[in-house]
């Protein structure tokens, strides 16, 4: 088990390194840097001005060197600019450059600063992640019980009318991407023209003070898309368990149907959905990006869009590290959980 865990950890690290390098390389391509210089400086810069601007700020070093500096394994640059000002990667505003550390990268806990929000990347990500965490918590609270109940109800009597209608519901929900269901839900429940006006069409106020009125629609929109898939998996696994020998035995010895479902079938039927739920979390991340943009909820997904639109290199790297770690950890948990839940499988 320990060796398995260590190997997985190694693969995780390697994946994270490769991914961040790809993001780093793509964001540091010359046209992207040029766009960055023009948005930070001014839009009418000549090509020479762009080159000096970038050169003075260390952007024109080779990509592996820059990546090493970001990672913290190479010393941060100190460049005496053509305008006479000396700039360094590790210089802190207002502090004496002499005191600046040589290394400042992710390994030293310095995530750099965002060029769009003019703030530390680590603090931006912390606040935004907390907001998205709130959203995700309610999504999971709504989604998992609803999906499991729908799946179990559909799967316990395969082919019945309940099964047929619930299956159609879950197919419809998997076929509705967030930007479609969000638009329809806003139109029905929040539109000031013809809608029911039960909820608010924007979740900006939910960032400080989340109420049922301003927070339900975004939560429901994300939960809806993920729900169908989990429900279908639960249904399949429940239907399979219900045909097993031990269920028939329980029936023959006269156990009531409710007891069979709850005591005999449910535990075995929930193994497969568990892994599906864990693997669904990275997918929810996509939904989060769309829903936060649609409802103007300024969380992690919204930050990703802002960072990507403005080629905010260090923020984008921070965002990708976080999302990659989320993806890999959920994969790990789902593997380990599967082993724990299913005695027939052992780690080797």
């Amino acid at each position, binding site marked *: 088990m320990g060796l398995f865990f260590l190997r997985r950890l190694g693969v995780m690290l390697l994946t994270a390194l490769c991914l961040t390098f790809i993001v780093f390389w793509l964001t540091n*391509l010359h*046209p992207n840097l040029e766009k960055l210089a023009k948005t930070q400086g001014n839009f009418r810069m000549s090509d020479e001005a762009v080159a000096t601007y970038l050169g003075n700020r260390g952007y024109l070093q080779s990509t592996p060197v820059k990546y090493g500096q970001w990672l913290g394994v190479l010393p941060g640059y100190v460049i005496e600019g053509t305008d006479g000002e000396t700039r360094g990667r590790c210089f802190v505003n207002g502090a004496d450059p002499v005191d600046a550390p040589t290394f400042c990268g992710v390994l030293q806990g310095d995530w750099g600063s965002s060029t769009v929000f003019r703030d530390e990347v680590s603090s931006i990500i912390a606040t935004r992640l907390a907001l998205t965490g709130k959203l995700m918590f309610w999504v999971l609270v709504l989604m998992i019980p609803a999906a499991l109940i729908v799946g179990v109800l559909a799967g316990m009597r395969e082919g019945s009318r309940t099964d047929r209608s619930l299956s159609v519901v879950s197919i419809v929900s998997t076929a509705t991407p967030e*930007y479609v269901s969000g638009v329809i839900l806003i*139109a029905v429940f929040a539109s000031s023209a013809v809608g029911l006006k039960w909820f608010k069409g924007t979740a900006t106020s939910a960032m400080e003070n989340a109420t049922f009125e301003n927070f339900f629609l975004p939560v429901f929109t994300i939960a809806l898309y993920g729900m169908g898939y989990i429900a279908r998996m639960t249904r399949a696994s429940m239907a399979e368990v219900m045909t097993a020998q031990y269920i028939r035995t329980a029936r023959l010895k006269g156990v009531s149907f409710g007891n069979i479902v709850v005591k005999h079938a449910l535990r075995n039927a929930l193994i497969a959905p568990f892994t599906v739920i864990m693997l669904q979390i990275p997918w929810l991340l996509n939904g989060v990006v769309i829903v936060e943009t649609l409802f103007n909820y300024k969380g992690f997904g919204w930050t*990703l869009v802002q960072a990507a639109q403005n080629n905010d290199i260090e923020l984008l790297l921070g965002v990708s590290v976080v999302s990659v770690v989320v993806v890999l950890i959920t994969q790990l948990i789902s593997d380990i959980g599967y082993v724990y839940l299913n005695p027939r499988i052992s780690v080797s």
Partner: protein
Amino acid sequence: MEPLSFTQITLAILAELLPVWIGLAAVFFLSLRYRRRLGLYGKLFDSTIGMIGFAIVLFWVLTAIFGALDLIGTHDPLAQASGMKNKVPGTPLRGAEDGEYGWYLLGGDNLARDVFSRVIAGAWEVIRIAPFATLFAFMVGITLGLPAAYYGGRLDTVLSFIANLVLAFPVILLFYLLVTPEIVATGIPVYMAAVLFLFPLIFAVILFNSRFHVQPAKRNLYLAVTLVVGLWLYLGIAWNADPLGIISFPPNLLVVFVAVVFVNSPTVFRIVRGLALDIKTRDYVAAAQTRGEGPWYIMLWEILPNARGPLIVDFCLRIGYTTILLGTLGFFGLGLSPESPDWGSTINEGRKLLSIYLHPALPPALSLLSLVLGLNLLADGLREESLRD
């Protein structure tokens, strides 16, 4: 002219879609008549769910094709008419000339364009990209997934690592990194296209070579045809350098195409690999090995045909997923031109005024929903029927 009532709008739309109804009726009549001779496709008509799904998908395919042939749309999807901005469905077109359609059936959007015609034009955008992008993703996934499972070992480790790497990327981040004008300027999408589009060619060549290498005359003929046609298409599509000048691919469409293929192929790879790992332990594979067949013959002519059931089902589901991805791209305003009538962009434009005007955003949203739903139902029907043999 009077504004149309709700019933009149419905009737007018149904009448406008007449070619589609005729097409649907013809296909269904013929298929039901000859279903016993049509294999898996014919069996689809035994399951109600599958039939409904097929009807919805066929409806959109026919709408897209007839729309592209200019048999359906009432107005030019890009034309703006004065005084029609954000007008409600059924508003008569102000100052309509003779021969022009007199109403905006589903109203006008915020640039005073006809919503109905844009939805029809948007169907063509989806139908001409999604199935082909999915097909390409399958070619890539199959060509890499089969050897990874068959040979195993280091090849498998490396390919699986790369696949997991791409899958660990949040899709939207990947789109933002690949589908921007700046990245297009560096030419990276073209190189990616050059690599990805090579796979169908490799696939076809290996497919024929492994089967017919004992009959050189036949093999040479097949290979020559494949290579000539394939390379011609390849040059035209990937490099935009068709020597005859017939095939060309708009550069911004190419980027979207490449991004979608790139996102889809690792999942296909994993599915193919999983299926092949299972099938390669079967007796008929061992028999082929004993006969002395080559590894590619076994992979492509023994393993692949036996994995076709799950692959066909996944193909339908994946077209739906690709449709969703295309919509996501449009929703974030990536890739396609801002004027493009595709459903994602239209939803994105419509959502900004959603609290006041519903009609520009709802029709494309419902269209996308129904197409994906149709594909999912179709996949469900196929799964049911293929499990039955």
